[in-house]
């Protein structure tokens, strides 16, 4: 450190004058310096010198040229070079199998690092098993046997033995719209047909054969679109 000159009386306020001129003092400190300055010609002279020095330093350094533009270009180039190097170090080579395996292993290690992970895995397995068992139990509380491949392959919409089936033949000039309205009014669905002679086999919602006969009779009576309607089963 540079040697101090032999000390002349040095008021504490004199030490604060550069801060005073720069406006860096607290209000209290500033008041204290102001009070001292009113009574101390030496420090008043010192204050003037500090002001002149500050102005001289400012004038001089402000007038000096800044760094040339190439400096910022060098900064950018160096940053890009260093970032490129970091990226290269972080990513394994494309065909480095052992590197990828290591990265994978590291990933799994991180994934299973928390203590609660094995417990969570067991809980998930138990929950899935419970869900599967619940889904396998019928509403009557019986286990639903798995359906055989043969049975599964059978279309599910064929009428069962309890269904009421009828045959209906429409007039040639019956439109598609009229046909569908008649089927809807019967509360039936077409399960087969039309055959070569235009006969549709329908399954009715109504399970009572006698009531089905009444419906078919009424249909024949009022609709000119039907040329034949009869129950065929049961």
């Amino acid at each position, binding site marked *: 450190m540079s040697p101090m000159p032999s000390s002349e009386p040095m008021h504490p306020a004199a030490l604060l004058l550069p801060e005073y001129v720069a406006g860096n003092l607290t209000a209290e400190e500033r008041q204290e310096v102001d009070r001292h300055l009113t009574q101390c010609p030496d420090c008043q002279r010192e204050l003037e010198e*500090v002001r002149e*020095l500050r102005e001289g330093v*400012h*004038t001089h350094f402000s*007038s000096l040229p800044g*760094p040339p533009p190439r400096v910022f270009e060098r900064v950018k180039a160096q940053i890009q070079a260093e970032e490129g190097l970091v990226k290269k170090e972080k990513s394994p080579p494309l065909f480095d199998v052992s590197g990828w395996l290591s990265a994978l292993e590291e990933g799994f290690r991180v994934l299973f690092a928390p203590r609660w992970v094995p417990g969570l895995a067991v809980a998930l397995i138990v929950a899935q098993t419970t869900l599967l068992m619940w889904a396998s139990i019928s509403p009557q509380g019986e286990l639903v046997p798995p359906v055989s491949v043969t049975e599964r392959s059978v279309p599910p919409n064929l009428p069962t033995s309890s269904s009421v089936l009828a045959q209906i033949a429409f007039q040639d000039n019956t439109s598609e719209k009229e046909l569908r309205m008649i089927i809807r009014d019967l509360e039936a669905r077409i399960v087969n047909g039309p055959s070569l002679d235009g006969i549709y086999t329908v399954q009715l919602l109504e399970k009572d054969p006698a009531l089905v006969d009444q419906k078919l009779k009424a249909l024949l009576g009022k609709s000119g679109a039907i040329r034949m309607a009869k129950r065929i089963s049961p």
Partner: protein
Amino acid sequence: MDSTNYQELNDEELLQATASGVNQAFEVLYKRFEGRLYQFLRIKMNNDTMAEDVLVDVMVGVWKGAKTFHGGSKVSTWIFGIARHKALDAIRAIVRSDSTTVNLEDSLEAPDSSDNPAIQAERKSVGGLVQKAITKLPPDQQEVIYLVYYEGMTYQEIGQLLNIPVNTVKTRVFYSKQKLKETMEHLGLQQGTF
């Protein structure tokens, strides 16, 4: 598209944006500090080319270290701290010889913009003598003169930067100024002007 006007951000906000990788923020930060750092490094290195080299290292260091800034000081203090350490590292690394140094008095000639010959003369006189006088001070005194009278750093900030107590900063500033005054008088500035 980023519509932030980075010119309006303060130093700390710019540094945070830099830490997030925003190039535009870093460029504004660079522009804000380049001149100040450059002058400081010219004082430390006594050589324009070396000052440029160290400035590059400093700003790369700011980019890389932006994430490590935790607000324990002002951003300017932090950046000047990096500059100071980089300059000291560079000084230790080089072998000084007469052939490698540039005469700072010649390289720091102030450009003159006034038409008044008297003012021109005065500027050349005062400004040039200030710089000449500064370069004759010991390095630690040069440093505080620049930081106090040009950077306007508080004594506390300088204490943080130089890692010395505030009272030491006060006395160092006082005696540096006294020494500067004596040197300028010795260099022939008209008595009474300073």
